[in-house]
């Protein structure tokens, strides 16, 4: 993240201040649902909310409603964005309620992306100033109203904990709301923001999260949306990627009581029924013949062996510094080949989407992540206008990248099904098996890393050759990520190496495979951090140096990674805490999404079995808006990355995905979860991401700990000792 970009001024629609009923202003088409009235909207419905700007409404009942422009999928955006608003508004935390903003790109764009979208760990980073300004302008309007009412200078009025006061005068936000909303809104740049030293909410440990209802079952996800007359649909997809329906017989399925419709859509056969159970039973009765003439029929083993051959050949140059070739040809060199499988996101809520289509108009309810691009794709499919596509965003049961699909795959599937349902709303539900086998995986990769070292064991040249599918090529994100045939999402983490090496070259082979691929929590860093950090450990071992000291000596020009690595080492008592017999300790440090995370891992080994016992993490993510959520995200990022280090793997046999569900796509459970400590480096810099940066360092730190314990350098994920 560049500072200039961070400071690019947010625009808030302050021109339009209208009395709006909450249900009209926000996604409260949800009240169509029978049991979807949230506490916030129920309260607000009793007293009309007054719109101060695109992000802030205040009701006479004293509720401050904050519209959240990003999808809440567990990463804490409700809480984080509302904290920034409430900080500058000087609201009481208890009076703040959150709702997802509607999809409206002009008002709610991600300022780093120019479209409404959640991803790249940017939610807090892009909103930090914008949300504070939204709070500060609303505060200024409350103060102006109070000044008018009491006939006192605005400059003498103070605001604290939702109370506006001057001398003996005092009023709540609610009492001033009507007059305040009628004030002229100052320009966002015209309001001054607090000095960080004066923050009362930002940095607090004890703020209760605003994504409520998750401890009593009342939180509403797509799966829970109920609309009058709604049908539930499941779709039979081709077992192989790229397969097409040749013919199908639905007669048995249609005989089943409760199955309402069966028809073909672009990518399969849809079964619409009164409920999910009936739809699944109906689908089991379908007889489908598939046309595999354009399908991917290779096995993943074949694909990976082709990649292993490719990395012996020069690829497209992604980065070149100095002269690597001549260095590698002389002196001592080290080489290693790394292998990474396809990975499924396996978020807990299988993909789903509720859609109602009426000609060229559509209304949808789902955990919408790629808002602008979904909306555009739907409008294009229906041949209608963008404003005729209305999207209501509800909580998502995890995402990890999957829900922002560059082709809006599951969303368009829902629209295609709903288009055939004669105006009835349809809830498209994927079974776990559908979800696991639908592709859009983290791409499989092979890396070959080579280095030349001097007589002190320090690297003089570093070369990385990668082979794998590009995520961005052929998508509407291509121009953001692909330059001269190099997709940054393939090579990020290995280009701009933090370690000081005079000669460097990174090359990539963009492979072709029929397996759909997508970003998966931390994208390219999921594999580049592993090869980089395992390889640097190998160099340290070869040099006979301590892995932390070796890294520090190569990071002298990089104060940020140095500080984070030192903090992790200090907290983990690196070099001083004695480990039990058979244990090993490993380290990794990596910067991604503007944040640096170092992790130190202890493993215990028994034969070929091992257990990760403890992870100590240090993070520099700029100003810690909510330290508790930052820790939760780093803990969660570690769990997610650890799952891939220990078990996750998608394989294909003759083009068929071998894994179907959680019994054969093994993921981390509680008994494998180590103790985790997260330490946050104090910082006055602008906030950077925390959703993804915790994931990359854990797998290499585990591999390095295993190497320390056993002498085996593991270069393939998931990790297996021999």
């Amino acid at each position, binding site marked *: 993240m560049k500072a200039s970009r961070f400071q690019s001024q947010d625009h808030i629609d302050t021109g339009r201040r209208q009395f709006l009923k909450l249900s009209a202003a926000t996604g409260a088409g949800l009240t169509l649902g029978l049991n979807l009235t949230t506490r916030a909207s129920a309260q607000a419905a009793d007293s009309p909310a007054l719109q101060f700007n695109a992000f802030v409404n205040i009701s006479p009942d004293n509720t401050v409603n904050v519209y959240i422009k990003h999808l809440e999928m567990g990463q804490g955006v409700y809480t984080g964005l509302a904290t920034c608003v409430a900080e500058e508004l000087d609201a009481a935390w208890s009076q703040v309620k959150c709702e997802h903003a509607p999809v409206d790109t002009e008002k709610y764009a991600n300022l780093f992306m120019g479209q409404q979208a959640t991803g790249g760990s940017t939610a807090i980073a892009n909103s930090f100033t914008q949300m504070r300004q939204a709070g500060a302008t609303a505060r200024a309007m409350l103060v102006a109203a109070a000044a008018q009412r009491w006939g006192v200078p605005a400059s003498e009025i103070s605001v604290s904990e939702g109370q506006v006061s001057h001398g003996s005068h005092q009023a709540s936000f609610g009492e001033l709301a009507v007059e305040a909303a009628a004030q002229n809104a100052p320009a966002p740049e015209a309001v001054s923001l607090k000095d960080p030293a004066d923050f009362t909410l930002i940095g607090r440990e004890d703020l209760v999260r605003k994504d409520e209802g998750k401890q009593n079952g009342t939180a509403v996800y797509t799966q829970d949306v109920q609309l009058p007359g709604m049908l539930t649909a499941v779709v039979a997809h081709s077992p192989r990627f790229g397969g097409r329906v040749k013919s199908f017989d639905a007669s048995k399925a249609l005989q089943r009581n409760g199955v309402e419709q069966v028809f073909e859509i672009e990518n399969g056969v849809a079964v619409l029924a009164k409920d999910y159970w009936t739809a699944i039973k109906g689908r089991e009765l379908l007889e489908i013949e598939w046309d595999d003439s354009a399908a991917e029929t290779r096995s993943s083993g074949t694909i990976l062996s082709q990649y292993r051959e490719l990395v012996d050949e020069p690829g497209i140059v992604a980065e070149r510094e100095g002269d690597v070739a001549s260095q590698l040809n002389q002196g001592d060199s080290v080489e290693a080949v790394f292998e990474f499988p396809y990975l499924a996101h396996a978020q807990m809520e299988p993909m789903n989407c509720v859609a109602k289509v009426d000609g060229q108009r559509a209304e949808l309810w789902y955990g919408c992540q790629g808002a602008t691009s979904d909306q555009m794709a739907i409008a294009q499919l229906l041949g209608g206008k963008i404003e005729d596509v209305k999207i209501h965003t509800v909580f998502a049961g995890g995402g990890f990248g999957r829900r922002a699909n560059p082709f809006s795959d599951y969303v368009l599937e829902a629209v295609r099904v709903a288009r055939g349902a004669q105006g009835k709303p349809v809830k498209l539900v994927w079974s776990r098996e559908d979800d696991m086998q639908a592709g859009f995986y983290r791409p499989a990769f092979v890396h070959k890393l080579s280095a030349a070292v001097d007589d002190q064991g320090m690297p003089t040249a570093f070369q990385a050759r990668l082979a794998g599918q590009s995520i961005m090529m052929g998508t509407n994100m291509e121009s953001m990520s692909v330059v001269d045939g190099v997709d940054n999402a393939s090579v990020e983490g290995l280009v701009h190496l933090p370690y000081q090496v005079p000669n460097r070259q990174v090359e990539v082979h963009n492979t072709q495979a029929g397996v759909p691929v997508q970003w998966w929590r931390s994208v390219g860093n999921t594999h580049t951090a592993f090869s980089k950090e395992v390889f640097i450990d190998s160099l340290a071992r070869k040099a006979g140096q301590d892995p932390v000291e070796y890294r520090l000596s190569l990071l002298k020009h990089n104060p940020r990674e140095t500080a984070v690595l030192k903090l992790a080492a200090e907290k983990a008592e690196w070099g001083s805490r004695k480990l039990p017999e058979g244990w090993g300790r490993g380290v990794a440090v990596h910067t991604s999404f503007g944040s640096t995370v170092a992790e130190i891992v202890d493993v215990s080994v028994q034969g070929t079995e091992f257990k990760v016992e403890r992870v100590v993490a240090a993070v520099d993510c700029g100003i810690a808006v909510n330290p508790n959520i930052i820790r939760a995200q780093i803990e969660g990022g570690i769990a997610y990355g650890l799952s891939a280090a220990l078990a996750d793997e998608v394989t294909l046999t003759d083009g068929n995905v071998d894994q179907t569900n*959680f019994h054969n796509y093994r993921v981390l459970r*509680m008994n494998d979860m180590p103790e985790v400590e997260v330490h946050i480096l104090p910082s006055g810099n602008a906030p950077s991401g925390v959703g993804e940066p915790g994931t990359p360092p854990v797998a290499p730190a585990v591999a390095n700990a295993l190497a320390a314990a056993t002498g085996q350098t593991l270069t393939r994920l998931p990790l297996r000792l021999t």
Partner: protein
Amino acid sequence: MIELTVNGETRRLDIESDMPLLWALRNELGLTGTKFGCGIAACGACTVQVNGNAMRSCVTPVSAVQGQSITTIEGLSAEGLTDVQQAWIEHQIPQCGYCQSGMIMAVSAHLDNNDSSSADETARAISNICRCGTYPRIKRAIASLQEQRRSGGVQQFDPAATPAQENNV
């Protein structure tokens, strides 16, 4: 006709006897707090209690639980929140939250039935999946709940006393 007793209320439903309890709860009774995650009893998002024992409702045919006492997340507490639910807020456990109804039902049954289990035994017993990785906080919450129940009182939550606080530099 199938007769189910859910959260103390008995209802007669015109459904097939092999329908999994999960779908009867969600679609027939509108109790959507219980979640669908895998359909094969592998993830635990659908966990409810039957006669006080944790049960994965996605593979339990309704015919198997007729006449038994079924409790869902909606009926876990007659009023307010249980100590387990309260601990879920205090320890700031839920992230996406999708697995947490099942998690809470499983942990509640475990604590009620195995009050002296060790941390390791508990971690093995609660095999529910959380892809957000809330496990460390769940472990902490379970430990504090066990302590709380042993000492016979509900402790006041003090955020400054959580281990998390010590981690801040």
